[in-house]
């Protein structure tokens, strides 16, 4: 279909509106940013950002996520990892959100939130195992209640509603945090989830990791809505936009949303505006649908460089600090990759043993047959 939504008029002509009718609802969507792309503050920073240790922790987490990302792509390119969804350029969304969560909160991520998973305590080895095609990568040693990556787009949004409902029914001051992409906002699952979260006033925070591209479909063709944040308005709760490449803005918004949800204030939606600097996955060639000039232009918004500029400008980060961090991150990632590559695949019976809590007789026979083949 060649209908170009970007060409549509911004508002219908007055003639199309109901005449002499009162306005019964109005809404607004706010946008927040603390650091501009060069790392210059555009407004006073939130309290946590005055603490060097806090900012350095965010910076380290983003660098670690990118180091993992780079290694994962390299392993895939050399046939040692499965198809991989890079989060290049989107580290601030994942790290900003996760850093505002408490350990007892529950994360329900999409497939481009490695930075959030790492912050939550999922290990580099577990991430490599998952992307390397091994279910054991989802058996997190920490963050035991967090959901694994959700591959079918947006279908985990109702899970977050269920988790949040469970937390509310138990009167626990915990929050379910669900991250999905811009494409997911077109799905019924997300609309249904937001609606239920609103009706039941649940402790849930939804984050749209809006990287402008759903494989080949640009944001402009995904929805005619001016913002994706306003999808929350239709569900009866607040939505807002943040600069998703400003980790301070993401964390500040997430912290507010989490505090509100924890205090019984109901759900919240954050649309984090970022940009996918990578292909959709290692199986994709973005050159088929977007120009390299567009991608290059977005490198100037790089969230890692942005925070580094701020840290350096304010005397909080030295060249030596940077070199040490890069070396440490590389060491951690290389060690995890070695561990992953040295991990033998699970035994074939594992695919049977976790299908049900107890192996049904019918499946036990198939299990025996599978093992017979292995032994031959």
């Amino acid at each position, binding site marked *: 279909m060649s209908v170009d939504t970007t060409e549509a008029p911004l508002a219908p002509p007055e003639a199309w509106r109901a005449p002499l009718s009162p306005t019964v609802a109005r809404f607004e969507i706010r946008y927040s940013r603390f650091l501009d792309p060069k790392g210059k503050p555009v407004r006073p920073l939130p309290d946590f950002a005055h603490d060097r240790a806090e900012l350095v922790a965010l910076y380290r987490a983003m660098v670690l996520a990118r180091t993992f990302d780079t290694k994962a792509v390299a392993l895939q390119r050399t046939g040692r990892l499965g198809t991989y969804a890079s989060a290049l350029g989107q580290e601030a969304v994942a790290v900003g959100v996760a850093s505002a969560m408490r350990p007892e909160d529950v994360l329900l991520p999409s497939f481009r939130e490695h930075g959030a998973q790492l912050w939550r305590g999922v290990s580099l080895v577990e991430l490599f195992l998952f992307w390397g095609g091994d279910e054991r990568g*989802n*058996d997190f040693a920490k963050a035991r209640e967090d959901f694994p990556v959700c591959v079918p787009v947006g279908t985990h949004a*109702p*899970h977050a509603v269920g988790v949040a409902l469970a937390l509310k029914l138990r009167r626990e001051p915990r929050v379910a945090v669900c991250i999905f992409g811009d494409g997911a906002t077109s799905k*019924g699952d997300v609309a*249904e*989830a937001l609606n239920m979260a609103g009706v039941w006033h649940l402790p849930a925070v939804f984050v749209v990791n809006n990287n402008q591209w759903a494989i080949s479909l640009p944001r402009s063709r995904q929805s005619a809505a001016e913002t994706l944040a306003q999808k929350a308005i239709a569900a009866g709760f607040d939505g807002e936009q943040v600069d998703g490449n400003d980790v301070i803005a993401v964390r500040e918004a997430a912290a507010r949303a989490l505090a509100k949800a924890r205090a019984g204030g109901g759900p919240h939606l954050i649309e984090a505006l970022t940009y996918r600097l990578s292909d959709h996955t290692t199986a994709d060639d973005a050159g088929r649908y977007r120009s390299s000039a567009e991608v290059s232009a977005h490198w100037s918004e790089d969230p890692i460089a942005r925070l580094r500029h701020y840290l350096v400008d304010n005397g909080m980060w030295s060249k030596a600090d940077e070199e040490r961090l890069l070396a440490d991150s590389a060491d951690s990632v290389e060690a995890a990759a070695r561990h992953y590559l040295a991990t033998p695949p699970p035994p074939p019976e594992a695919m049977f043993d976790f299908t049900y809590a107890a192996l049904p007789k019918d499946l036990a026979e198939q299990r025996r047959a599978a093992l017979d083949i292995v032994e031959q």
Partner: protein
Amino acid sequence: MPEITLVEAVNLALARAMAEDPEVLVLGEDVGTEGGVFRATEGLQKRFGDERVIDTPLAEGAIAGISVGLAAQGFRPVAEIQFTGFIYPVIDQLANHAARLRTRTRGRLSCPLVVRSPYGGGIRAIEHHSESPEAMFAHIPGLRVVIPSSPARAYGLLLAAIRDPDPVVFFEPTRLYRAVRERVEDDGEALPLDRCFILREGSDITLISWGAMTRETLAAADRLAQEGIAAEVVDVATLKPLDSDTLLESVAKTGRVVIVHEAPLSVGVGAEIAARLAERGLVSLLAPIARVTGWDTVMPYPRLERHYLPSETRILDAARRVLAYQ
């Protein structure tokens, strides 16, 4: 010990499960104040409160999806899908999430949920209210598909489904909701899952069925008995995982088989049963297996319904052909 209907047995089992386990929740469209469109959840919200019997917005996919979230958090949600014709969005949540959460997390998270839905034809309902889609669910690894055929089995099997640590789809034959009454003791005793029930013993022919079709099947067995033919009637009850052993034992005894189901013929659960019997029971078989099923048509509107649903006559015709085969 009163005689109750199948829908009352469902209600009794739900109340029992909720009383004995505070983690059991009932949710769905109109299940609370309304008590369910078939009254399966009648009185439950009054007794257990609106935090345990939850009226949801109208969104079947999300009803299943939030059940996944609740179950992963340790609750035991029992979700009602109002009619089976509206259950297809639920398949996404069951196939992609509920049925595989245990294996993909290597047991870290699991999904002890039940999806209940009224099922099958014969009540002269509007379109989308009479389908039998059990095969679509039986094809999903990690799921259990259970269909009761009497008030007592509805009570015992639903209790078992709710207590089961894995996801169960529980189809309740709408045609049987109020058709028969039976003594059901509210003793909290579950019936076994993954097991067929022998409804009648016999040595001449095996009639295999489930759900509402067990009625016509039993009626056909009665007629055969009048002719001196002892038909064994097996209620499969749990369609996945399949209890092949009971089916094979029966066939070893009779050598002749008719499979009866309401769902369409092609790729139905009857095909799976026939294949199992052929694979492992061929030497016992004295005649080709016959299937009496719904047709490979869209479920017709009520005026043609009786031409779609397997009748006692069709079952008898098939049984006589199988019995006559030399």
